[in-house]
């Protein structure tokens, strides 16, 4: 046979440049293959701790993102009315002059009139420093509308949650249970982990109303009714308590379960934890029967402890838990109907958890010493693990539900044990190690401290002297006292209403607020364009930075064009949202593997310039000159605490890691090392980190904190009780009367579950409507990608069999979906593997005509749609004369997934376009090419 001769060893590229992906928030390492100075091919970096060489569809499509026709080209000044998309290109000098002209008087007279919100920013430790220097209290990123419930519940309960904070011990776990889970959060590590677990034959449980993605490969699928996860979890807790299948030793040693709770109903400390004269938490020592400090050497904390003083009995947290969770309201039979899971199945799952945790325990032989000074010869593992993110978070009961999940892990004794859930450095950290919120404004001066943090009682709320909210988003107020990530979703509506006050300038970054990142999209568009009686915009100035022509661009007065992710410096910092693994501390950089071919600049570099021009503390030298020439300069030379900067690796002379002086060659050292730095956790520090002095000492060396800080897990979250006490009338800072009952009911210091159905009028709107993010398309800045849009170019409304048959739906049909707030008409598709009272669609595939350089007949704009039109930032009126926020009453997390609707068959709209069909905006970048043949080589 004559076979053609082919070249089996073609040259792959001229050079490989290693940087960090930005196609979603996962932050994998990538190898960028270059030909003739251009990007030829992108693959995963095998040495990188996050992805170990693998790469998802988004990451592999990065070349299309980097070369997207929707890239902004130069700074722009608005010329037409807001929303028209009419701009003229200007120079950076002109752009800075305009920005300084707006911001300088704001800072001089009243810095709170600037609202600076940075969306899906991955540089929050930098942008928050800028906002502090400016002096405004109004700063946050997107956590409030994403997963603050998971993060905050984790920090308050046990010093960390999932993803950046911790992960299942994929190499040892024998059973993994995932609740909800957005497919783009920690996506490659979860896929790698599931692959490992399945290869070992271990069981994967998926708890999710929708059986797609990870739930499709789960060995058992629990198609739960949305919003009832907390009730299901508490029923498992009930069964485990009833059967005594709880890790009593773990609870006694490592948690506040044995700590005494003040039982004196007449005391202003009623329900607070008891402390000794040194202010240490008090337990009963089982050996002596007497009270003792929790951390005394040799103490045996008694879970059954109680103390009777002057006729009042103070009982342990554990006794309160037993009483609460043995209550028949949590019996499987009592919760089966609400959760959609049979009582038999709940019992079987509880038995499986108990079997794996206690009958299949594992041991890792290793000597280690705990914080009480006791030395152990092994780590005992309870190989049950869990993972969850947004699915259980984005409900108004999400904080308590996330707390319940953390409590379930803790009573099984799995957290920080082999096979269980493991923290990733620099976590765990107790809630006290985090800052408290700061909000003191002084004209012309910096803010008095970091904006965001953790409240520990009413004294920490961000209130002005008259008790009114200090922040435009009303974070850290009585409406949501523990809103640790701020509430970006309330900014525009509050600014438009002038409540709690009017602002002058809205300055945003990477936040598509006029489209998929807002509830009530149409309403927000109107707020952004609304004018007052003088004909001026109600929100006077809007400055926006984005790399792409997103829907939000046309609502800004001034555009600061950002670069693509391959053209920029970034640091994935331990001070921010780190990328560590359970066995390693790591951080990473992005660097310009190609220089921009447009007049654009990394947003953080633009902030260095603006900070210099505005004279912001931290951004100017003593002589008033600009301190950081660009973001790379900041990354290299900024000192946060002595010896600690944005990057932990290659400090000093390049051989110091964790702590050390600034190193002018640091970025080069990162590039040389493949774009990241990593160091392994010592083996004797690998588990039981919150209590393991081997870990604590290592963590201090590596700069995670400045002195060892072992702590107990907070099954009982005392700060919540402090807010309840205020609502009961104790203390000087008092909530408004209309909030007292809600605070008492929801701020229970032990996890509870409550329904959100009545508030969302479930009697009239019986179906829950959800969104999911596809694995192959990011929901925020990627939906015009030429390759990925061929996979997810439109988003039908998926309808379960029951609703499909009730409506006699057929392929190609349309449905009218109605909520208490609005109505949409959209194409439907049938999905059998779906909870029977749930409908859903892919998030943010729907695009506005004129945005993202798409043609006006692109399916994203014709058939694609947003559920956001059905969701309001306020709950439907209750008839009490008040409007309540559609958020978690504890954290303010946006309750996206509480949406209740009715679904009916509808005629296809006359224009066969999904409704509402919002008119086109003008594209400031033109349209993309018709055809692509993308090849650099010959």
């Amino acid at each position, binding site marked *: 046979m004559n076979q053609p001769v082919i070249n089996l060893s073609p040259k792959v590229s001229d050079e490989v440049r290693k940087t960090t992906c930005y196609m979603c928030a996962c932050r994998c390492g990538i190898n960028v293959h270059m030909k003739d100075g251009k990007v030829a091919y992108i693959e995963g970096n095998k040495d990188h701790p996050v992805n170990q060489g693998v790469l998802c569809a988004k990451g592999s499509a990065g070349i299309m993102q980097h070369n997207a026709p929707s890239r902004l080209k130069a700074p722009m000044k608005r010329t037409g009315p807001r929303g028209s998309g009419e701009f003229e290109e200007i120079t950076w000098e002109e752009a800075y002059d305009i920005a300084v002209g707006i911001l300088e008087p704001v800072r001089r007279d009243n810095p709170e009139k600037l609202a600076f919100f940075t969306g899906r920013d991955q540089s929050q430790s930098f942008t928050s420093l800028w906002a502090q220097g400016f002096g405004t209290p109004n700063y946050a990123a997107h956590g409030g509308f994403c997963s603050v419930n998971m993060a905050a519940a984790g920090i308050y309960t046990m010093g960390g949650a999932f993803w950046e904070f911790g992960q299942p011990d994929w190499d040892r776990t024998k059973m993994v249970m995932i609740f909800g889970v957005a497919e783009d959060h920690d996506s490659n590590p979860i896929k790698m982990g599931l692959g490992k677990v399945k290869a070992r034959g271990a069981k994967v449980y998926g708890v999710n109303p929708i059986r797609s993605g990870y739930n499709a490969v789960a060995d058992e699928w629990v198609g739960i009714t949305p919003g009832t996860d907390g009730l299901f979890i508490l029923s498992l807790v009930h069964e485990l308590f009833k059967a005594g299948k709880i890790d009593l030793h773990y609870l006694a040693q490592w948690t506040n379960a044995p700590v005494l709770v003040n039982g004196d109903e007449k005391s202003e400390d009623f329900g607070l934890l008891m402390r000794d004269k040194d202010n240490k938490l008090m337990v009963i020592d089982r050996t002596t029967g007497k009270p003792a400090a929790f951390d005394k050497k040799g103490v045996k904390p008694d879970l059954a402890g109680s103390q009777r003083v002057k006729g009042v009995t103070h009982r342990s947290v554990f006794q309160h838990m037993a009483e609460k969770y043995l209550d028949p309201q949590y019996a499987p039979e009592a919760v089966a109907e609400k959760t959609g899971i049979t009582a038999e199945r709940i019992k079987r799952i509880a038995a499986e958890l108990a079997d794996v945790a206690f009958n299949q325990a594992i041991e890792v032989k290793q000597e280690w010493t705990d914080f009480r000074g006791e030395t152990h010869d092994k780590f005992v593992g309870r190989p049950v693990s869990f993972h969850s993110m947004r699915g259980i978070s984005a409900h108004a009961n999400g904080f308590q539900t996330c707390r319940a999940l953390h409590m379930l892990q803790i009573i099984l004794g799995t957290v920080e044990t082999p096979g269980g859930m493991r923290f990733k450095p620099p976590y765990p950290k107790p809630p006290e190690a985090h800052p408290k919120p700061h909000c003191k404004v002084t004209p012309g001066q910096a803010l008095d401290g970091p904006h965001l943090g953790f409240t520990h009682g009413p004294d920490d709320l961000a209130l002005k002297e008259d008790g009114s909210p200090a922040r435009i988003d009303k974070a850290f107020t009585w409406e949501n006292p523990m809103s640790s990530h701020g509430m970006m979703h309330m900014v525009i509506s509050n600014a438009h209403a002038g409540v709690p006050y009017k602002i002058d300038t809205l300055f945003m970054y990477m936040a598509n607020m006029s489209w998929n990142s807002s509830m009530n999209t149409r309403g927000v568009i109107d707020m952004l364009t609304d004018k007052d009686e003088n004909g001026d915009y109600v929100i006077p100035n809007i400055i926006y930075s984005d790399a792409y022509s997103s829907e939000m661009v046309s609502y800004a007065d001034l555009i600061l064009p950002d670069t693509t992710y391959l053209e920029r410096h970034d640091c994935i910092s331990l001070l921010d949202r780190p990328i560590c693994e359970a066995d390693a501390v790591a951080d990473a950089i992005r660097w310009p593997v190609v220089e921009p071919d447009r007049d654009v600049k990394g947003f953080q570099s633009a902030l260095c310039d603006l900070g210099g021009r505005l004279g912001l503390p931290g951004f100017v030298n003593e002589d008033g000159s600009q301190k950081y020439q660009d973001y790379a300069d900041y990354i290299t030379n900024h000192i946060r605490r002595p010896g600690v900067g944005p990057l932990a690796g290659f400090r000093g002379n390049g051989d110091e890691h964790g702590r050390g002086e600034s190193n002018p060659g640091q970025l080069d050292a990162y590039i040389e090392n493949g774009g990241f730095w990593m160091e392994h956790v010592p083996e004797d520090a690998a588990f039981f980190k919150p209590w393991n002095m081997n870990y604590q000492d290592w963590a201090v060396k590596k700069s995670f904190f400045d002195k060892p800080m072992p702590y107990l897990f907070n099954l009982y979250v005392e700060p919540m009780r402090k807010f309840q006490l205020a609502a009961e009338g104790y203390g000087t800072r008092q909530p408004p009367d209309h909030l007292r009952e809600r605070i008492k009911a929801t701020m229970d210091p032990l996890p509870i579950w409550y329904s959100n159905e009545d508030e969302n009028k479930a009697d009239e709107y019986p179906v829950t409507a959800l969104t999911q993010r596809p*694995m192959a398309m990011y929901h925020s800045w990627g939906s015009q990608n030429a390759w990925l849009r061929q*996979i997810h170019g439109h988003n039908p409304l998926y309808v379960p069999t029951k609703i499909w048959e009730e409506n006699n739906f057929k392929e190609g049909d349309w449905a009218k979906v109605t909520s208490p707030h609005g109505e949409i008409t959209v194409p439907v598709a049938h999905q059998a593997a779906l909870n029977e009272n749930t409908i859903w669609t892919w998030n943010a595939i729907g695009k506005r005509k004129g945005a993202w350089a798409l043609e006006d007949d692109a399916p994203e704009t014709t058939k694609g749609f947003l559920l956001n039109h059905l969701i309001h930032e306020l709950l439907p009126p209750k008839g009490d004369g008040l409007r309540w926020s559609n958020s978690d009453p504890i954290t303010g997390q946006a309750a996206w997934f509480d949406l209740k609707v009715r679904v009916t068959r509808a005629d296809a709209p006359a224009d066969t376009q999904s409704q509402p069909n919002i008119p086109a905006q003008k594209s400031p970048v033109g349209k993309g090419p018709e055809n692509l043949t993308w090849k*650099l080589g010959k």
Partner: protein
Amino acid sequence: MTQLPAHTEKKLGLVIDLDTCVGCHACVVSCKGWNTENYGAALSDQNAYGKDPSGTFLNRVHSYEVQPDQGAAQTIHFPKSCLHCEDAPCVTVCPTGASYKRVEDGIVLVNESDCIGCGLCAWACPYGARELDQAEGVMKKCTLCVDRIYNENLPEEDRQPACVRTCPAGARHFGDLGDETSDVSKLVKERGGFDLMPEQGTKPVNKYLPPRPKDEQIDILAPLLEPVAAEPKGFLGWLDKTLEKL
């Protein structure tokens, strides 16, 4: 009419695990990226930013729902690319000899300089695994990354198809299915790997591993939940006794 080799020295192919494929499309896009830049003509895209965008892909993931007799419906993700059949009808139907099966490893390739874009091979393939590139007018198909697997410019560990290297869930395996001792052959044996549409008589080299049984609800652990107490008071009695024993 083109002839197939009577025998190939190796049978290189893929083993795809349907138990772990989460349907993420990583393999689809990694393949698109590598093969756009490498072997033969670029994989083009038409209406790239417009209505009905359609481009050339050598590998696609399809999703299906399965309704078992008992229990909940299931979702199956099914990646599909050329299966490098031993009796490849796409080769024998080719009028110019452009389609051929390599003697040394069994990879089915298209020699683009001889391809006239007649489309007969795509019609003959029962799996729909070939796509005619609309810009170049030549037939494109999975090459098993023939320009990676032997490529001396790549580190040895990277000498595998792009889809295998990138698969996050580890659901794709590459090797010689003609060698009974290879890892892929062992995997097929252990897991009951199967041929796609064997009735077509094409003898595909690629194999699929079936999903494990799902949603089995056999309750043998019920005794574990034997109550120690039904109410808080009894529970505290049990607690006290148990703590004594600790």
